[in-house]
């Protein structure tokens, strides 16, 4: 505390001298934290969109078949519900993902047509927790009095020229290859121009089955963790409990290997299941996430080097300039370790205040940045929430990064000061005269 108080007074007295060091630290930390918060927000946004598209955090594939009758799927869903262990916030969703591109299916509204990449049959009421997180520009997912309903993305709604309450015609091809049409009421228009959402629509499950004129099918069973992403242990727990009920593929098996083995197996009598997390499902996005994190890591490393080298080299000059002061302190009885502690305390106070200022500025800058609608940038919508950047503030992570900067810089300052503070009082006075 003694050295800390002296350090604070010293910095205040020499504030002109320390201004540039403070600025380097504050700006460096500000840039670093902005990069971290924005990137984390972008990744979080992308993951949330993937979660919405796939219907959950963990997918269950297989059973008797990849695409199965609803009765089979309900049995498997029940098994999964019993396997989740202590997590009470887990919901099981059943979906049917229809491929409209295969047969050139499309939506029509007043003569205008648009194609879709995916039409997903969902139970809106069961998936309430998931659809509550959608950003709706119009309407909502609630069906109300309508029987056949659809949610479409804003870009698609604009192309069709339709609004909530309008009835669009879904031109489908049935399982028997006949052209079919069904009128769907648009109950909600969501904001998503990303690769997940733009050409995806969500149709009431019964309506989709009616359109394709076939028995109810399910090809996706997912576990949705309402309170946040499951940990590795959560997934292992489900896997272990499911293994007691049916044959399960190993957790670390690659998805393509699963498909290869499953399709060559006879599963008519024996169920074989496979659990896959969302990260593994979207392997292309995993690469994107890794690339983003790598870029941020490079920025952080560069800034840490700049801060620590900058401060330590500047401190070297400062210590040399204050050798008379050091010599005087030695002469009145302070040990060289004491002088070291003094300078280290000054560096620590400087770094702490600089980092705190940088943190505050990063919050302001990211807040200002999040005000702007960036959805006009083609392809960028994947990283946005409601068209805006949504910086993710992880206090623990930020504290850890700041700690790394402080420790790294202090170590480099320490290394620099080691020899300089060992000068004798006579030597110090001699050097200055």
């Amino acid at each position: 505390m003694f050295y800390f108080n002296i350090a604070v007074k010293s910095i205040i007295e020499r504030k002109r001298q320390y201004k540039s060091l403070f600025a380097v630290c504050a700006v460096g930390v500000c840039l670093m934290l902005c990069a971290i918060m924005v990137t984390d927000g972008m990744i979080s946004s992308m993951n949330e969109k993937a979660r919405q598209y796939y219907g959950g955090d963990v997918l269950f594939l297989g059973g008797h078949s990849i695409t199965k009758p609803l009765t089979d799927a309900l049995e498997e869903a029940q098994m999964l519900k019993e396997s989740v262990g202590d997590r009470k916030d887990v919901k099981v969703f059943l979906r049917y993902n229809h491929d409209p591109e295969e047969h050139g299916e499309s939506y029509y509204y007043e003569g205008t047509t648009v194609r879709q990449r995916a039409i997903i049959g969902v139970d809106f009421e069961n998936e309430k927790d998931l659809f509550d997180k959608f950003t709706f520009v119009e309407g909502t997912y609630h069906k109300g009095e309508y029987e056949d309903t659809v949610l479409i993305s804003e870009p698609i709604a604009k192309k069709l020229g339709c609004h909530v309450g309008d009835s669009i015609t879904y031109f489908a091809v049935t399982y028997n290859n006949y052209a079919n049409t069904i009128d769907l009421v648009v109950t909600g228009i969501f904001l998503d121009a990303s690769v997940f959402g733009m050409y995806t629509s969500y149709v009431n499950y019964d309506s989709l089955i009616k359109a394709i004129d076939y028995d109810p099918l399910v090809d996706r069973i997912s576990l949705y963790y309402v309170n946040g992403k499951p940990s590795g242990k959560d997934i292992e727990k489900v896997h272990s409990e499911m293994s007691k009920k049916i044959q399960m593929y190993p957790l670390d098996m690659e998805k393509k290997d699963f498909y290869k083995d499953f399709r060559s197996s006879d599963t008519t009598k024996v169920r074989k299941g496979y659990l896959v997390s969302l990260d593994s499902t979207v392997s292309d996005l995993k690469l994107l996430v890794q690339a983003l994190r790598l870029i941020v890591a490079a920025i952080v490393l560069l800034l840490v080097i700049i801060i620590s080298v900058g401060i330590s080299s500047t401190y070297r000059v400062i210590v040399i300039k204050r050798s008379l002061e050091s010599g005087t302190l030695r002469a009145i009885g302070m040990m060289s370790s004491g002088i070291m502690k003094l300078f280290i305390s000054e560096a620590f106070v400087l770094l702490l205040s600089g980092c705190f200022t940088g943190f505050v500025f990063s919050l302001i800058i990211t807040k200002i940045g999040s005000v702007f609608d960036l959805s006009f940038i083609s392809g960028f919508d994947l990283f946005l929430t409601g068209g805006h950047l949504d910086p993710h503030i992880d206090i623990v992570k930020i504290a850890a990064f700041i700690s790394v900067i402080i420790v790294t810089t202090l170590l480099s300052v320490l290394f620099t000061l080691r020899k300089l503070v060992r000068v004798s009082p006579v030597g110090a006075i001699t050097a200055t005269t």
Partner: protein
Amino acid sequence: MKKTFNNILFTLLLGAGLLSPLSAQVTKGKALELLKQADKNTNYSGTDFKADYTIVTDKPGSGKSVTSAVMYRRDSANMFTIVITGPDSDKGKGYVQFDKNIWFYDPRDRQFTYTSARNRFQNSALNNSDLIPQTIADDYEIKDYKEVKLGKFDCVYYELSAVKKTVDYATVKLWVSIDDGLIRKKEDYSLSGQLLRTTAIPSYQKVDNRFVPSGMLVVDNLRGTKIDGKMQYEKTQITIANVSFQKQSNVVYSKKFLEEMSD
């Protein structure tokens, strides 16, 4: 009083008679026979067929586009070739069917792409399946039929339901003229009963004792634009001219022919 009542009754009966279909003289057997004849009239087996097609697509609000093509058919072998001769931007493109596969050729990248009979022909209201012989009698069963008048033609009106999964439309309504067994009008419906397309063939030309449509009009009852509050649907008008039933070289029904024609 009695005379007035009789006059009114006579007038009502006469009116009902004029509005009602013609008296049902066609039996189910005859209706089926007529349907088979209609199919036969679209099939030019035993020889090759060649004609110039002009396809005018009218998209309300966007204007008209004209495509010209030469059509070659060898129905006995289920083969055909279409070479697009205009406009310049599409010149050299083409379609060829053999071994039950239809290939689309684009001379720009010299690639053949697999397509299907269900797909649209050059983004018009026409399907590829409209350009080949019809097998309606085999693909559909007659749910209902009656004699009706369609313009100047005495026709049998059919309500048909698909029995095969190879067809596009679950329900078809058809008008076939009784005198010559020619398809005059066709309505294609979705499984849910929505009208999807209307095809009208008002006139035919007789060449070498075979009937070939002089023109066809296809209306897409889904695509269009609202103009002045009224829906205007996309239409495709096809004119067929210079019909010939002379034998063509076998190479015409091959990918090589399309590649050579585009050079």
